Each structure stands twice: as C-alpha cells, then as structure tokens.
C-alpha cells in the first residue's frame, strides 16, 4: 500500500514539475498578459515533435531539447503577430495557430507518431552521469527539478526587471503602459513567445520521458495548464510573482495527483477529460461561493 502511495506521489511530483512548465506558460499569457492563448495545444506537440525528430536524426538530446524552446518561442511569436499586427482577437489567433500547428507537427514527424525507443534521450544522459539505471523515477525527478528550478529562477528574476515589470503592467493596464512610453505590442509578442517556449520545452521533456512523440500529445494541454493555474490559485491564494509561479507548479502537481489516483481507482482514461472539466469548475466555484457567503462584491464574469 505504502509502495503504491509512494510511486503515485513520486510520479505525480515528476509530472507536476514538467506540466508545471505548461502551467507557468499559461500563467504568463492568461494572468500576466491577460491574453487567453490557445496556441499551447500546438506548441506543446511542436516541442515534442521537434526534439524527437532531432534525436532520431542523431542530434545530442540537450541541443535537441533546447531546439524545442526555440520552435515554441517562434510559435508564440506568430500568435503575437497575428494579434498585435493583424489585430486578430487573441482567442482566434491562438485557435488558428493550434489548428495550423497540427498539420505542421505531422509534417515534422513525417507521420502521426515517432518512437524514441533505443534512442539516447536527455534522461539517459542524466542517468549515465548519476550512475543510475535508465528509466528510474529518480532520474526523471532529477531532470524535472533541474529544469523547473532553472526556469523558476530565471523568470522570477526577469519579471522583476524593468522590462519584466513593463510586461506585467501590459496585462494590467495596456493604455497606461503605452502612455508611459512603452511599445505594448512588443510586450505581447515577448510574453507569448516566452510562454510557448516553456510549453515547447515541456513537450520535449515529456516526449523523451515517455519514449515517443505523438501528434495528439498536446490535445487538452491548454485546459490542463488552465486547471493547474486555477487550482493553484484556489488552494494557495498566492500574491506576488514568485508565489504565483510556485502556485502554478503546485496546482499542476495536485492536478496530476488527482488524475493518477483516478486512474488507479479504475476510472477509464476516456473519463479523464470530464474529471478535468469538473475540477476546473470546482476550483473556480469555490472562491465564488466563499465570497458569496461573506457577502463580498463579486466582479461580473469575463467574456473574452
């Protein structure tokens, strides 16, 4: 029993950290920029597909993983251009990117999926260095922690710089930021790019961890990211940049834990989407009900 609990927890911990990257990406667009970016489903797969193809073609897994960040940044940049330069609504720009990237991902992989069996992945490299057996959960967690820590510290520093502050302010009051001499279009581009770069990185890590990339691997990723951000906010009620990012990772962990337990309890994988939807509704409803009970003022619902 303890064994099972231990393996469920450690696996969720690993997944929480990796999908925490997606959650931080969604936090950056949705919360920091107030830009509901649906590119995520496509850029996640794009990252996985790019890394898989590069590794299969003999590229070292580390540059192959970094390349996933690059293509993710590129995808986010295009979404940003659609919105700021062609003035497409944010939601539509993301949806179009998500749809368009599906075809691109098929082209990149030359098929619906690409196996990384018998290929050397970043996990294998780390296992080698640590002298541990391939496929050990310790290796997975080590890789995930290393990436999450680096991403967290870089972003935590960046968002407090002059450029980072202007980025955050853009999502809060774009008119004000422009009137203070900042090109807000540039900030939207930057935010979308960083966000999807992180999501692409997550796709690359997951593809290597599971040993394949699949054209459908990104489906529902935006909802998962959203769920993580919202669950994190509901549970930890964070304030400040650092805590908000930690809450997103924490939310991702809780979400994955919930899903893993549901699967262990014998739920059909097909039912997981419904569970996710219900989870998000609950996480959003709890703060609402709490305010209602306290007779606090509740802002009207947002309609993007």
């Amino acid at each position, binding site marked *: 029993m303890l064994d099972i609990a231990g393996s469920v927890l450690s696996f969720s911990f690993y997944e929480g950290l990796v999908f925490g990257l997606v959650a931080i990406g969604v936090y950056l667009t949705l919360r920091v920029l107030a830009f509901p970016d649906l590119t995520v489903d496509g850029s996640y797969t794009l990252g996985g597909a790019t890394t898989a193809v590069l590794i299969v073609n003999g590229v070292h897994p580390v540059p192959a993983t970094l390349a996933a960040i690059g293509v993710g940044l590129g995808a986010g940049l295009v979404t940003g251009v659609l919105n700021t330069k062609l003035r497409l609504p944010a939601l539509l720009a993301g949806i179009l990117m998500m749809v368009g990237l599906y075809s691109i991902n098929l082209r990149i992989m030359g098929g619906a999926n690409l196996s990384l069996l018998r290929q050397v992945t970043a996990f294998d490299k780390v296992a080698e260095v640590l002298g541990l057996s391939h496929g050990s959960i310790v290796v997975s967690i080590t890789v995930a922690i290393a990436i999450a820590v680096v991403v967290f510290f870089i972003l935590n520093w*960046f968002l*407090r*710089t*002059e*450029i*980072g*502050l*202007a980025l*955050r*302010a853009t999502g*809060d*009051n774009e*008119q*004000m*930021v*422009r*009137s*203070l*001499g*900042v*090109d*807000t279009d540039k900030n939207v581009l930057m935010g979308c790019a960083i966000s999807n770069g992180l999501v692409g990185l997550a796709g690359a890590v997951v593809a290597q961890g599971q040993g394949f990339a699949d054209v459908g691997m990104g489906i529902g990723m935006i909802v998962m990211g959203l769920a993580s951000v919202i669950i994190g906010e509901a549970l930890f009620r964070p304030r400040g940049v650092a805590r908000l990012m930690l809450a997103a990772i924490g939310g991702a962990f809780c979400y994955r834990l919930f899903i893993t337990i549901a699967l262990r309890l014998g739920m059909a994988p097909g039912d997981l989407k419904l569970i996710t939807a219900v989870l998000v509704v609950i996480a959003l409803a709890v703060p609402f009900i709490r305010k209602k009970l306290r007779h606090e003022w509740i802002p009207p619902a947002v309609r993007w």
Partner: protein
Amino acid sequence: MSQNKSLLQLRGISKIFSKGTIDEVTALDNIKLDVNAEDYITIIGSNGAGKTTLLNVIGGVFPPERGGKVIISGNDITGFSEYKHAIYVGRVYQDPHIGTAARMTVEENLAMAVLRGQPRGLRPATNKQRRELFRSALAPLSLGLEDRLNAQVGTLSSGQRQAVALVMATISKPALLLLDEHTANLDPRTAQLVLDLTEVIVQREKMTTIMVTHNMELALRYGNRLIMMHEGKIVVDLNQKQRAGLTIDDLIVAFEQASGRRFIEDNILLRR
C-alpha cells in the same frame, strides 16, 4: 532649435471621424496652436467642442488628418505611435483607473513611470535609490502613500489613485503635461486636493501644461492662458493680461461674440 521657438506647435490639425459616412463629424477643424515653454493653458468648451480630441492628437492616440503637423521641442512627431509621443507628453486622464495599474503596487506603478523616455533594461525595476525618490514624490500629497509603497493600487480610493496618476505623469518631467478633466470624477474635497497638488508640481517643475476642463471657474483660476473651443475650432484665446480680472459672465460674453451663438444653449454643458 532657437530659444524663442514654442515648445509645442500644432499646424493645420484637423480630425474627421466616420469619414465618408452620414455620421461624419469634424472634431477638429484646421487648428493652429503655439504653446510656449512654461505656459499653463486651460481649455474650455462644451461637449463635442474637440477638447479631448485635441489632447488625443497631441498625445498620439491617433494622428491628425493629412497635412497636420505636431511638433514638440522642435521634433516633428506627427503620425508617431502613442508610446513615442509619451516620451514628451505626460497625461492624466479623467478616469483614475486609466492612469494607474490596479493589480500592481504603488511602487511598481511609479517604477513604470520613472522610466518614461528611457530605454528599459534588465536592471531590477526598483531599488533603494528609486524608492527614496518615490517616497519624496509622494510625501507632498499628505495622503500617507509614501508609507504604502507596497499597497496594491486597486485598494486605494479614486482620489488617492488620481494623485498617484498625477505623480506618475510628472515624475520623469516630460516636456508637456496634459490634464484631461482630471478632477471631474472626484468629490469636491479630493478634487481640490488634486488641483492644489497639480499647482504645486506645475510651479515647482515649471511644467508646460494644458488642462482641459468643463468648469469655467477652474479655467479662470488656474493657468496663464485661456482657450475656448467650439465645433473643432479655437474661438477664444486669452493671454495672461487679457484674462486678468475676467469673470465667468465676461467669459460667456466672449464666447457668444466669438461663436455667434447664444450661450444659453450650452449652459448645461459648460457648467459654471
């Protein structure tokens, strides 16, 4: 740039909205205006006279019609984006929510404002030195905000937010300050506080200022030059000498003579 050149030159500024439709409106009609350095101009006029449209053209929210020119400190910035106009122009809006970012702290708002016109880099946005600067800029408000640098701006009252917005518009000492009915949404006491504060900052920094107002009394009390607008044109332009000793009734007469209209029609809008 020669010394006697004006700080802001507007030449042939027109603005037509809904061009080519039956709703076509000429909001600004071939405006020529020279604003001297350290001028404090009050602009008055009824709704639809073109006051805010004029500020929007100066602030770069939209460009004037072809042929118009906006020149600030000798630089022709006609057609530049709003964020480039902002290098020269600080602005306080009627709505305090527009001038401040609610989900950020007082300190973060001011840190955004202090870098107007400067390149933003990868240095920390706030540091001890800047915090001192913010405190000394907030202290004269007597609102206690200098001790609440970490308060979220959304938790402040409208008056406090507008005071912060005024400090934000002026802290980097832009060449020109635009005040767009910036006390119209405040209760009389807070409005007076913000007006007093405006006066202090404008005098201390010798800021060139344009204040739009509906309130004739304010237009007479503040500034050194008074402009009346009507149907997109400047119909009255009084310098300090011409303005001295004028009463609201004198203004109404001046308006009627210049516009050829009975003032009574606009009486409700041009509140006394």
